[in-house]
């Protein structure tokens, strides 16, 4: 039996992963979260709900996504065989839609006519706007004013899909501030609004349900590995912002003790510079956005600004389950710097004809390092969580090119 068998029982009834997680919210939201918890418990055990979710994933998202062997790149690196879980091929171009399909169904069953979301890179905002359009729900998306600038193609996509994008001018004008503002909206409009959180963070039951909806990728990858490799892979790698694509891949493998797992945080200019977004590597436990988890904070407990080339990882916290997995040593958490990320981004374009998201390029950057220490008969599965179309402006600017 796996020494990690107990991990599958988490979170406990009150949303705790060890000392992490929980429900740290002001009183007004308690009732809505209790209701959501109750509703999710009921629906997640309901075969009809599961069938509807699976059908949407197949017919609308285009699942299953392939497990693709990046042969030319692997050969070039001269180490392990790298496989890419192609979440970039999902409708809307990232893993985020797995979760928004699920939460939009919850919204539908709750009868609430309006959904809100926070977004960093804009991928979760686009995925929310998409499902809202399909279900005829009113949709407003909070986005840090800085991110509105650096992810302008996604801002326009959301508008095309009928959503309203609200730039957030407070604080550091990035993802954490968008989440503050979304929580403020939810407190105000809790009767008629469903809050679609975009990652495995927030108050219980969000970390649990976002993980469960994303776990479809891990279940597929596990099955595909057995079929295509003939065994389980030696290691899994995924980038970690809030951590939803990582947990989606990791969770179905947690009790496969022989499978190593690596979460890759945004190293920005390097951990030693302090300009990064790597709470698991360089932060400490605290409480933000409704849960206890590792955070980037100063000595007085104020949340500090993060830095990453990728808007989707520019967040000072991380899902509470990752904090627990770190402490018990089930998952190793690494960093990739902006520079390493750019190199991996270019590698994938050049060797495989795939333009990856900058977020996913963090996982690629670490895969590149790890593969080179391994043998050709070993196998790595990397979550290619999204495609990079949204990032071409940023990359061009880094190369000194104006489009």
């Amino acid at each position, binding site marked *: 039996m796996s020494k990690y068998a107990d991990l599958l029982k988490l979170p406990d009834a*009150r949303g705790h992963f060890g000392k992490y997680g*929980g*429900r*740290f*919210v*002001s*009183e*007004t*939201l*308690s*009732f*809505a979260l209790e209701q959501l918890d109750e509703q999710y418990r009921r629906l997640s055990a309901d075969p009809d709900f599961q069938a509807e979710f699976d059908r949407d994933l197949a017919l609308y998202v285009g699942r299953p996504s392939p497990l693709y062997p990046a042969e030319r790149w692997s050969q070039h690196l001269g180490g392990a065989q790298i496989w890419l879980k192609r979440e970039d091929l999902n409708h809307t171009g990232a893993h985020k839609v797995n979760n928004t399909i699920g939460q939009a169904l919850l919204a539908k069953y709750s009868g609430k006519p309006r959904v809100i979301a926070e977004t960093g890179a804009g991928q979760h905002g686009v995925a929310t706007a998409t499902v809202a359009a399909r279900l005829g729900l009113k949709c407003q998306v909070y986005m840090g004013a800085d991110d509105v600038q650096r992810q302008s193609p996604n801002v326009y996509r959301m508008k095309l899909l009928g959503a309203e994008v609200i730039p957030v001018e*407070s*604080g550091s004008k990035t993802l*954490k*501030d968008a989440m*503050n503002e979304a*929580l*403020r909206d939810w*407190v*105000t*409009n*809790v*009767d008629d609004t469903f809050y679609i959180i975009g990652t495995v963070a927030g108050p219980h039951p969000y970390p649990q349900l976002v993980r469960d909806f994303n776990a479809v990728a891990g279940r597929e990858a596990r099955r595909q590995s057995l079929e295509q490799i003939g065994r389980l892979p030696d290691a899994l790698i995924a980038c970690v912002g809030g951590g939803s694509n990582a947990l989606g891949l990791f969770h179905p493998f947690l009790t496969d003790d022989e499978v190593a797992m690596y979460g890759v945080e945004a190293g920005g200019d390097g951990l030693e510079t302090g300009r990064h977004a790597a709470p698991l590597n360089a932060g400490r*436990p*605290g*409480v*933000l*956005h*409704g849960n206890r988890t590792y*955070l980037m*904070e100063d*000595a*007085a*407990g*104020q*949340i*500090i600004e993060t830095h990453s080339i990728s808007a989707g990882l520019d967040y000072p916290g991380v899902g509470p389950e990752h904090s627990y997995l770190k402490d018990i040593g089930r998952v190793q958490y690494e960093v990739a710097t902006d520079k390493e990320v750019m190199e991996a981004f270019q590698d994938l374009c050049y060797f495989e004809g795939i333009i990856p998201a900058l977020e996913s390029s963090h996982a690629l950057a670490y895969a590149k390092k790890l593969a080179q220490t391994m043998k050709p008969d070993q196998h790595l599965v990397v979550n290619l969580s999204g495609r990079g179309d949204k990032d071409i402006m940023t990359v061009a600017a880094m190369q000194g090119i104006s489009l």
Partner: protein
Amino acid sequence: MSRIQKTFAQLKKEGRKALIPFVTAGDPAPEQTVAIMHALVEAGADILELGVPFSDPMADGPVIQKACERALKKGTTTLDVFQLVTEFRKKDQTTPVVLMGYLNPIEALGYDTFVKAAAMAGIDGVLVVDLPPEEAEEFADLLKGQEMDSVFLLAPTTTLERARKIAAAGSGYLYYVSLKGVTGSATLDIPAVAEKLNEFAGITDLPLAVGFGIRDGQTARALAEVSDGVIVGSALVSQIAELADQPEKIVPRLQEVLGEMRQALDA
């Protein structure tokens, strides 16, 4: 009997309602805070709520968010807040002071250190906005050990069953959030507040104070009639914001605004 209990007992005897102003410590600068506290007491405050600045005040509207930003820009830390209350206590040993803030700066200090320092500074109660009773046991026990009160929130969405649990965990008073929204919102529905307060009054002996969205004497008065006291925050903090670069005008302006509320309550 705690200072908070004494205050409510005395008010009850006199047939008056508590007036509880809120300001953020360190806004517009830490040097102003003690003078502002004394001025508020002079203008009729029965209890003071002092905000502990936090970088991400999720339950607050723009007015108090900006107050936090001003205070943090001046370097105000939680330890500074204790220092300010210590200073205040040199001249005022009777007015209860309740800290209101968010959990993370408290966790950064450590519960034990926070609670001991708060007690030494002469603080009477603590309200942690994002610490509901389910998660508060350890912290509330520590406060109790130092004879400080745990003030909890009740909201329009709180069921009676939950309210019973909250009332059992709380002490000093209960803070009823008058509306669904953040601080400084403007959509007060007084009959709805009255109805909810009536329900809650049936399940607890603790005093019920109402806050969020109280801007003028008339509203304060209407809400005081259905509660044991009113909390006024953004209406004061917005005055501080307006006068942040003419600090000498802050005290008289706050006294004017709060004085009007006091008159309305006592009339």
